[in-house]
């Protein structure tokens, strides 16, 4: 196989006035796991739909498993598996019937499709429900069946769109373990997720998308460094206003402190490593303030994400659906209810 599982160059897509993708470049080496992070409406869904041949880009090009998605979509489809909010299973078939149907459509002979379905049902812990109609499944069971559908043809490239949304902790761990096995065998995975912990745990490379563009990419460690300097964690003792701590120390910070009044916590981005600590102590003493806890640490990926994409909701624009544009947004309400069930 070609060296790269996915190569995208300058992918652009607009839906009427809405620019969903404004020139996205990315690369996933064969056998790697690429995490795609981004706020709602950033363009993640459009990106995956283009790479999975469901949408044609307005400009740019992409190769998946060595084939151009626009020129050889059938060759790409033979080599990918898709799981997530936009690739459903049939609620009026049983779990087993769904998987066998998809296996047959991948071209597996009947007996092989049946055996493969049984294997995946076991792996995803659906054995007790395999013979039940999918409409009786819980959201988490349905999600696992979705993942099984994506794995049916043992594809070399797998797209997982928020695979663990709606899973309970046990289901999430089981899926993570399964993905670990898959990548150990050389499957390349592109994963979109809202859980930074998930990206950190599974993905060797992370791409952060916002407003249809890649705004940062790298290993989790590199992204953490890009968030700039260290973080000073201060815990205010009960009865003391954490805002006083923030005020006394804000001159030492490289950016505005984050104050969590509910738990009395202040997080201040600082430069200069541990050298800053004596000055912290001096200023606290001068202001007559106490701390019940203090730590200097590297930023979390979540802090890096927020620093790179700007403050959370409401500031940039009204919270839209993922950027598939108005027609798709109105035509797809079922996804929301389904994943929420």
């Amino acid at each position, binding site marked *: 196989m070609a060296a790269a599982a996915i190569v995208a160059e300058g992918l652009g897509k607009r*839906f009427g006035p809405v620019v969903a993708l404004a020139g996205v470049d990315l690369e996933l080496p064969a056998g790697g796991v690429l995490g795609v992070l981004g706020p709602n409406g950033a363009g993640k869904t459009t990106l995956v*739909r283009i790479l*999975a*041949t*469901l*949408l*044609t880009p307005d400009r740019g090009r992409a190769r998946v498993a060595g084939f151009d998605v626009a020129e050889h979509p*059938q060759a790409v*489809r*033979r*080599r*990918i598996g*898709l799981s997530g*909010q*936009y*690739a*459903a*299973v*049939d*609620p*009026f*078939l049983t779990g087993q*019937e769904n998987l066998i*149907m*998809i*296996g*047959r*459509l*991948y*071209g*597996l*002979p009947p007996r*092989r499709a049946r*055996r*493969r379905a049984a*294997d995946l049902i076991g*792996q995803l812990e659906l054995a007790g429900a395999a013979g039940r*109609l999918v409409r009786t499944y819980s959201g988490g069971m349905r999600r696992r069946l979705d993942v099984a*559908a994506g*794995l*049916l*043809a*043992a*594809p*070399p490239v797998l797209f997982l769109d928020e695979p663990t949304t709606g899973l309970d902790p046990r289901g999430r761990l089981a899926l993570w373990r*399964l993905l670990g*096995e*898959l990548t150990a*065998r050389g*499957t390349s995975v592109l994963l979109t997720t809202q859980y930074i912990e998930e990206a950190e745990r599974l993905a060797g490379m992370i791409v952060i998308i916002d407003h249809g563009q890649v705004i940062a990419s790298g290993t989790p460690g590199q992204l953490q460094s890009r968030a700039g300097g260290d973080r000073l964690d201060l815990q205010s003792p009960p009865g003391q206003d954490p805002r006083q701590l923030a005020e006394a120390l804000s001159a030492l910070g490289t950016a505005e402190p984050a104050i969590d009044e509910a738990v009395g916590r202040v997080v201040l981005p600082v430069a200069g490593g541990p050298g800053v600590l004596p000055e912290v102590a001096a200023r606290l003493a001068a202001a007559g303030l106490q701390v019940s806890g203090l730590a200097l640490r590297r930023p979390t990926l979540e802090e890096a994400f927020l620093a790179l994409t700007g403050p959370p909701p409401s500031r940039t624009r009204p919270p839209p659906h993922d950027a598939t*544009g108005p*027609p*798709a947004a109105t*035509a*797809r*309400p*079922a*996804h929301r209810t*389904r994943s929420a069930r």
Partner: protein
Amino acid sequence: MITAAGTAALPGRPAPMLADTATITGRNLRRLVRVPTLLVFATVQPVLFVLLFTYAFGGAIHVPGVTRYIDYLLPGIVVLAIGFGASQTGVAIAEDLTTGMIDRFRSLPINAAAVLAGRVAADALRNLFVTGLMIGVAAAIGFRFHAGPAAALAAVALAVATGLAFSWLNLLLGLAVRDPESAGLAGLFPVIILFFTSSALVPVATMPGWLQAFAKANPVTVITGALRALCLGGPATRPVAEATAWLFGLLAVTIPVAVARYRHAAST
């Protein structure tokens, strides 16, 4: 164990359109007996049509030259039942679009037309069942074929062929409106309008003059006329040829447009 079980069969696989169509037909047949609405459209409704129209209208309507109204009525209400049933095809394809089932199919290495063909094939089997069911119920209350077994078989074939045209039309409607409820209405309206302005229930000659011109050109009149000729006897060649021409014309328009719409359905 995750094994490479699937990969060996995949590369270089020719497009076995028939196998894929059969797989999707199987899916739709399963749905037919499991989705309550679909089951009602395929069983209760056809039986009700036979009984209600016969006993509610039968006493009042006397068609010249026909002894039993049910003999005159059955061809028309078979077309009605098939037309109503076909509205569920538009609903189903719109549902598949909104739930992401179409995206699933489009991500698989299959011919796009297999998804639509698999639905039409399941519809055709349903229509064969519906036609047989209605003939059975009608026979129990007095219906008889008067033109022999060959004509009777031709009538069943023509009814199923009519269903094909209805199915493709509703696929097109469902793909165009993309919303299950709208698709259901969009599928029923033309059937209701065409049915009541046709010769399905009463002879065209009983209608006001301005309506007669429309009623005579109405495809439901043409198709019902052909079915009636095959059931009641009399010259059948010309009406059947006209009905066949209508059906071919409808299919020649609806199939390519529906396939084209399907190919672009999820890309907007």
